[in-house]
């Protein structure tokens, strides 16, 4: 039976997952079959990716949002959005490439053998294309492809390490068999397999050179033999691993650079051996088969040294994924399968460069254009709507065989606009559509009072409202896409959790962590601060702000008076949960945590930043607070030396709202995630990086994949095979 009216879809939340779902459901191919209404608390879209504009139009983010070159779904949708926006525009507009800066320089920090900190930085080679480009015929998500690339990487690392080998280490190349022409690695599979076989016959690989050449053979074999019996290569890998460890354990003792490379090699070897040993290439569960293990545990089982396991190259996985249970740095935990999958995608699936930094706030670059396009497509936006309850139909009223469903959605209305007009959420700064850091009170009824009384529309603990509203199934919506953050689920899905054991397990096991972040604008550039490398994204530094990104590229998009700040530095990571959860009425709780972050940041700048920026400290050891650019100062010259009070002119945040908490991928938790495709409630789907979305780690890409899955759940489109990387080992 054809339904005459458009199908009404209520999308709750305005983060990446909800936006992706809305974007797909309103795609022109549906010819208007779906009408989407997005219900958003507060004044701005974005969820954890929301940004605002503060004094001097400076960009204020929840944290550091760098898009990775492997975010194919996210870039695909964003590029489509910009194409449509520019098609509809009256004049030429910005393209996505105008607003993203490619960045191939990544660094990690670690303890130096000579005491203190050292950092290891690398330029990653450019890869063809741009993220979101169509995937070519050679599937880049097959484990054999990854395997071959990993082997290639290992070979590259060994070769680079060899050339910097200290003198005095015996050159064992003379031991290589004269019978083998190891320079020849071309050939038919039959020749390559025979060569590997002959190499094994020697009983061991006596030299690093032979090990490197053996890796080349293994790599070629992986690529050229269509059906690769992965375990057949195990003896070759083991021989290579043994020879490599023999060679290089002896020369890594005191040289930081060599030691770092050896740590990488050790980790790569352990992963290679583990993939084969655990039969992951043939396990129908793929990398999920090891999700019960923590990443460090997995490495240890597969022979990695303790040094490598505790190296910055392992810590980077935990830091980038905020993988600290309860926000406690003493409880690092990430499921090995998730970590390995993310690592493989990060290293071997990026297009262009590994990192793409935005040249403005994420709200400006991502959510503003999506908002514009969705409005043009007819999507209705209901700001200042806070979801309170997802109400189920009474079980006793359901006919036999009828599935349970969502009967109503209950909202608090936080504010209404004057004259009942649509709220206009955007402002313009330097020609760019942006989200302000606070609502435009002039549009709101009683707005001036709300501003005076400091209504915090985004705070879980500020329950002030002007009205309530109930939406009913078939009257107001046909389907629901629940795109709120995982931390908010217990507060709005009480009925579902009480009656559904799977949901109970999900909210219990799929945990989240609060995060903290700060941004400082500096009147000095990095060289002045003593950082002698190019602008960087660095992680694995000291807690709690172990991740630092130089974001100087956003300054031109802000609205500073001359002279502009020379650079901006973003710092972030997790924030530990309090001993006792705050009451829902504790309206002061966010402010208290925010103040805690302020003190954390001041201490960090006073005690630790000097390891990265040696010229940023005074002789007393204190941070040079005069470096901070004050947006309110017309002339940034102090008559006397500023103190840490100067920090209050900067931006910091404690992301403690339940919906803002960062989802974790703890060992043993992944099996409890629920997919957007799940049809337990036949008019409800879920969307977010906390769902079973294949990638299963907190990030933009996972959220976008989940949103596309939610759209598929409602409309059977996009096809699952077209969701890039969904079917990933």
């Amino acid at each position: 039976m054809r339904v005459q009216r458009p199908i009404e879809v209520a999308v709750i939340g305005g983060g990446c997952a909800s936006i992706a779902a809305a974007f797909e459901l309103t795609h022109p191919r549906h010819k208007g079959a779906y009408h989407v209404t997005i219900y958003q608390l507060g004044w701005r879209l974005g969820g954890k990716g929301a940004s605002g504009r503060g004094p001097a139009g400076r960009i204020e983010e929840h944290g550091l949002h760098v898009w990775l070159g492997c975010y194919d779904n996210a870039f695909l949708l964003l590029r489509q959005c910009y194409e449509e926006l520019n098609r509809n525009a009256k004049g030429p507009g910005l393209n996505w490439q105008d607003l993203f800066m490619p960045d191939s320089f990544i660094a990690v920090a670690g303890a130096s053998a000579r005491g203190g900190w050292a950092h290891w930085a690398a330029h990653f080679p450019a890869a063809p294309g741009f993220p979101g480009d169509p995937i070519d015929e050679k599937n880049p998500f097959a484990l054999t492809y990854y395997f071959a690339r990993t082997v290639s990487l290992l070979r590259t690392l060994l070769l680079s390490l060899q050339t910097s080998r200290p003198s005095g280490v015996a050159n064992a190349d003379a031991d290589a068999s004269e019978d083998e022409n190891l320079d020849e690695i071309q050939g038919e599979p039959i020749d390559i397999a025979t060569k590997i076989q002959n190499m094994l016959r020697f009983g061991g690989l006596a030299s690093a050179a032979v090990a490197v050449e053996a890796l080349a053979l293994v790599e070629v074999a992986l690529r050229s033999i269509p059906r690769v019996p992965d375990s057949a290569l195990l003896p070759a890998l083991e021989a290579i691993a043994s020879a490599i460890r023999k060679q290089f354990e002896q020369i890594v003792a005191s040289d930081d650079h060599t030691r770092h490379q050896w740590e990488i090699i050790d980790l790569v070897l352990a992963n290679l051996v583990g993939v084969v040993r655990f039969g992951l290439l043939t396990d129908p569960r793929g990398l999920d088969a090891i999700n019960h293990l923590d990443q460090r545990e997995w490495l240890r089982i597969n022979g990695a040294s303790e040094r490598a396991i505790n190296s910055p190259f392992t810590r980077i996985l935990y830091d980038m994924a905020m993988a600290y249970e309860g926000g406690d740095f003493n409880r690092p935990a990430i499921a090995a399968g998730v970590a390995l999958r993310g690592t493989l995608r990060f290293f071997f699936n990026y297009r262009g460069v590994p990192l793409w930094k935005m040249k403005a706030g994420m709200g400006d670059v991502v959510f503003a254009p999506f908002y514009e396009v969705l409005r043009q497509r007819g999507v209705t936006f209901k700001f200042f709507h806070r979801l309170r309850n997802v109400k189920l139909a009474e079980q006793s009223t359901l006919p036999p065989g009828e599935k349970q469903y969502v009967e109503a959605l209950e909202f608090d209305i936080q504010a209404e606009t004057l004259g009942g007009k649509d709220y206009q959420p955007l402002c313009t700064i330097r020609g760019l559509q942006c989200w302000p850091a606070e609502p435009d009170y002039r549009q709101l009824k009683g707005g001036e009072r709300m501003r005076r009384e400091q209504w915090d529309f985004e705070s879980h603990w500020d329950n002030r409202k002007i009205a309530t509203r109930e939406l009913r199934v078939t009257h107001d919506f046909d389907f629901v896409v629940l795109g709120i953050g995982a931390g908010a689920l217990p507060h709005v899905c009480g009925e579902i959790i009480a009656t559904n054991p799977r949901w109970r397990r999900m909210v219990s096991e799929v945990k989240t962590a609060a995060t903290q972040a700060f941004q400082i604008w500096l009147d000095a550039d990095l060289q002045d601060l003593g950082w002698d490398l190019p602008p960087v994204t660095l992680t694995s530094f000291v807690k709690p702000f172990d991740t630092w990104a130089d974001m100087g590229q956003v300054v031109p998009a802000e609205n500073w008076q001359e002279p502009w700040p020379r650079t901006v530095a973003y710092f972030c990571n997790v924030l530990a949960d309090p001993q006792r959860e705050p009451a829902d009425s504790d309206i002061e709780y966010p402010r208290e945590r925010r103040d805690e972050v302020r003190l954390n940041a001041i201490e960090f700048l006073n005690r630790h930043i000097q390891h990265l920026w040696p010229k940023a400290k005074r002789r007393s050891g204190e941070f040079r607070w005069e470096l901070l650019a004050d947006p309110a100062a017309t002339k940034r010259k102090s008559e006397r030396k500023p103190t840490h009070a100067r920090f209050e002119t900067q931006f910091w945040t404690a992301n403690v709202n339940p919906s803002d908490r960062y989802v974790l991928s703890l060992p043993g938790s992944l099996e409890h995630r629920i997919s957007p495709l799940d049809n337990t409630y036949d008019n409800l789907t879920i969307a977010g990086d906390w769902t079973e979305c294949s990638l299963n780690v907190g990030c933009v890409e996972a959220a976008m994949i989940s949103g596309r899955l939610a759209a598929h759940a409602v409309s059977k489109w996009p096809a699952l095979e077209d969701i890039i990387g969904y079917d990933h080992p």
Partner: protein
Amino acid sequence: MAKPKDSQKSQRLRRDDPVRDSPRRSAIYHIERNTPGREEDSHLAGRPKGAASDTIQRVIAGMVRLSSDTIEEQIRAGQVAAEKLRTGFANPQRSETDVNLLIETLGASIRDVGAAWIDVVSVILRSAGARTSAPERPGTPPESGAPDPAPDTVTRTDTSADITTTSSVTPADPHRPSLPALIVVKDVRVKNVALDLRPRSPSFVPVVRPLMAADPKIVLSSVRFELSPDQAQLVLTVDLAVDQPPGTYTGVIVDSTTNEPGGTLSVTVGS
């Protein structure tokens, strides 16, 4: 897609159950999906697997089982040796000894997995050969039918010169079982002999190439196959040169005519 609920006055729409609700994680799915010449994924379910694919699957399963045990042993040895390497950095002599132990253990591991490795390599070679020698004809259906039964491996454990020897054979033709070769040890310094024969054809005549130690310059040549006096039994004779260094020696058994691999042999010599 969305179906109205007829029994209610207002049309409540509901989602259909999805065709699937989880990602396809299996690497074999990805491998098969990307094998040249295959059709699109949507037709995969209807295609029968070829015999080569089934054989590979069985061999892979066997390899995984065998490899897990040997790799665990290898890793343990590697960890011990690596730890000793770290602490023994100031004592290169000590480190050298541990590294040699590591290499010897590796050699033993290679011996253990080598047989299965050769099995799979042979399957690959035959698969590659079949693809290149039999060009596709339009309309030719893919291979179908039950694969050949797996040949049974027969293993015998004996004593010779007061040491335990292990001899196994996996016949080329599963319908024509073979007896494992008899191992005769002629030197008391031999501590262990393990022979694993996997002839590729009924006419296989085995030849032992010189076995090599961890250092490939050190070989063991005094090992040979011969027939028993009554011509009914294959015999492997293991002898040592007077100055044969201790260690584990491993090597491949090949067909005397085709030089195709047909098994592995390892001999451990004590001091």
